[in-house]
């Protein structure tokens, strides 16, 4: 097979072994969960319960019209509030707060047991929607909508287990523990989308997971395991498609335009559980790691668990902690309020000390051009930075600033420590505002 690569990229220190020491997952059952009514890209849910209601685990407690998937209670207990609550996005989002009664009384699951060839797509997509499944790699796009838009348009179905961000091992842990759920989920979507190629993509720094998959792959004929040379940002959708197929998604277009559909492996496992076990998305694997946490590890966490609960169970924060990040160190969001809950797309909570390579007091561009070399989108960050600072929208347009995926490779590499991604976000905002006028 022809080996493809994506453009640019970097090799940060991965630090993945930190969170892989503890092999058995601890399950966390918090005393109170906060379920945001918006955990996906699209329209927010409306609450289906009221304050004072008793809810069961797995009960649908919010839903809406349009581009929207429902949210479910992740514990059984009493609804104590429906109010705006801090969210990992940094905004306040309406959320349903449930006090856990610790009985874990659960809704009766509604599995679909019939063989796949007797199932029609509507039935499967409906089950996926009703389980509240979104892209669990971070983007949180409603799973059923993505699958629907891909129907009849894709020849390649991709499962993304690259997990190219340093520290995070949630997908790795999933593949080590229950790889069959991922492969079953892939089988279900293969039945829906009828692609000619089905690929599970892993980076070569996950030897144990690869061994596990190879052990059971013979039970899933037609599914291919692609082991890719580790490089960041391999797991970015456009870069992964390029690495696997050589196709480049055009600016502003979606993967389906080049015949590809990409879902995260956690999403496939959730799809399997939704269809075959009949259980909605109420828990997920979350990595808690970083130099500032006492016991880095992976947990199985109920959606809605506040960050501080998890941090406490993991032994607490070092007093010199500088940042707590939702997501990875390259693209994650720094949090100021640790009462924010784990949502469906939260794959990691990172607790970091001050980075000794961190931002300079007086960043200076040397024009060394390293940023151009590492940019996977083939942009020219040094000029973009210059023209954002100068407010030159015409130049930013010419430099295709809006193509930037904010992967941070340029800022990581920059010897002058320029705040590149920060400025690019600002520049994109300026461009969008100008276009809206």
């Amino acid at each position, binding site marked *: 097979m022809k080996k493809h690569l994506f453009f640019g990229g970097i090799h940060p220190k991965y630090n993945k072994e930190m969170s892989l020491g503890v092999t058995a997952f601890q399950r966390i059952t918090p005393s109170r969960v906060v379920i945001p009514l918006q955990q996906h890209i699209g329209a927010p849910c409306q609450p289906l319960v009221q304050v004072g209601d008793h809810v069961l685990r797995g009960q649908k407690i919010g839903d809406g019209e349009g581009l929207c998937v429902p949210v479910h209670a992740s514990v059984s207990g009493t609804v104590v509030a429906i109010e705006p609550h801090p969210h990992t996005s940094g905004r306040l989002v309406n959320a349903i707060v449930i006090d856990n009664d610790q009985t874990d009384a659960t809704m009766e699951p509604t599995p679909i047991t019939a063989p796949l060839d007797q199932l029609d797509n509507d039935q499967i997509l409906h089950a996926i929607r009703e389980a509240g499944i979104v892209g669990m790699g971070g983007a949180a796009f409603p799973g059923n909508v993505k699958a629907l838009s891909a129907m009849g348009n894709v020849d390649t179905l991709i499962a993304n287990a690259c997990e190219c961000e340093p520290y995070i091992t949630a997908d790795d842990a999933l593949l080590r523990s229950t790889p069959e759920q991922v492969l079953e989920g892939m089988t279900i979507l293969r039945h829906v989308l009828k692609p000619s190629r089905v690929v599970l993509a892993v980076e070569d720094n996950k030897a144990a997971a690869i061994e596990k998959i190879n052990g059971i792959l013979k039970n899933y004929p037609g599914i291919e395991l692609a082991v890719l040379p580790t490089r960041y940002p391999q797991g970015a959708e456009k870069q992964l498609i390029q690495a696997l197929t050589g196709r480049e998604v055009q600016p502003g277009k979606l993967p389906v335009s080049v015949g590809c559909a990409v879902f995260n492996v956690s999403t496939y496992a959730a799809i399997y559980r939704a269809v075959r076990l009949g259980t909605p998305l109420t828990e997920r694997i979350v990595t808690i790691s970083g130099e500032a946490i006492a016991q880095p590890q992976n947990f199985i966490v109920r959606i809605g668990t506040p960050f501080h609960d998890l941090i406490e169970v993991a032994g607490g924060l070092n007093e010199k902690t500088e*940042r707590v990040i939702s997501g990875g*160190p390259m693209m994650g*969001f720094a949090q100021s309020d640790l009462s924010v809950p784990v949502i469906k797309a939260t794959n990691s909570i990172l607790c970091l000390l001050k980075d000794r390579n961190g931002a300079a007091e007086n960043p200076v561009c040397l024009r060394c*051009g390293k940023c151009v070399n590492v940019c996977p989108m083939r942009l020219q960050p040094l000029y973009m930075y210059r023209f954002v600072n100068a407010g030159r929208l015409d130049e930013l347009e010419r430099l295709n600033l809006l193509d930037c995926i904010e992967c941070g490779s340029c800022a*990581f590499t920059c010897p002058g420590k320029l705040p590149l991604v920060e400025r690019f976000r600002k520049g994109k905002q300026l461009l969008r505002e100008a276009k809206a006028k």
Partner: protein
Amino acid sequence: MKLTVASSPHIRGNFRTNRIMLDVVIALLPALAVGMWMLGIRALLVTLVCIVSAVAAEWLYNVITKTRNTIADCSAIVTGLLLAMTLPHTVPYWQAVVGSVFAIIIVKALCGGLGQNIFNPALAARAFLMLIWPVGPTRYTALGVDGVTAATPLHHMVMPALPEESLLDMFLGRCPGSIGELSALALLLGGAYLVIRKVISIRIPAAYLGSVAILTLVFHKTGSPVEWMLYSLLSGGVMLGSIFMATDYATSPATAMGQILYGIGCGILTVIFRYFGIFPEGVTYAILLMNALVWVIDRCTAPRRFGAKKGGAEK
């Protein structure tokens, strides 16, 4: 506990400006050692005078203009060192001081400082010195265009004739010339170090030396074509210029294609100036001229947009 909320990425690599500058200094040490070995202690003294006066000029500029102290980025050390490499060891110390101050104040600081200057400070200073203390063909001892006496290998080649030195002598540095340009071996070692350390890419030196090699091979003047080509590559400042001057970040293109075109441009101009110019050497002016084109080159060589049709239909 006060948590910092800042933009991603939250980790950064360990590349640093002053580390890069230090690598350039390390890479020049073999060439400096050869200079001392061939030319004596005065080569070292001239070098030290250049470095000290460059750093002092930077410090003075910061003090006078009440701007942030920028000595710590170590770039002034590199500028002083690079200027010294282009000078003959017989240069009067005060001229070395004037050159260093000119490089730091006029060429760099007044253009906006590190990364903002259009012209390579060391080469611009060298050109400046050559213009004020003109060095006609009879006055090479004052400030040689390429070296100390009219007997540098390059001068023979203007006649044209092959130099008296063997190719091996010139490769090792057993020939007259400026402090840092004597030994191709030492310069190539330094270049290899910079490439391995990822301080520079091999594109500019390779394109520069490659185009000089091809042009001198095709348009050889005397001797066998290969001999003429090798003498052309080993004489004068081509090695020093292509590895250490043309690769200066601030004054060279940032795109891969731009770097190749820039290297080729430097090579072509060097050969033209050597063949048709009034001075025997063309490297200084070739690079300075190409410096002026860097922004235009970068603008015209933007990498193909991701996802745009190969061939450039979509823009």
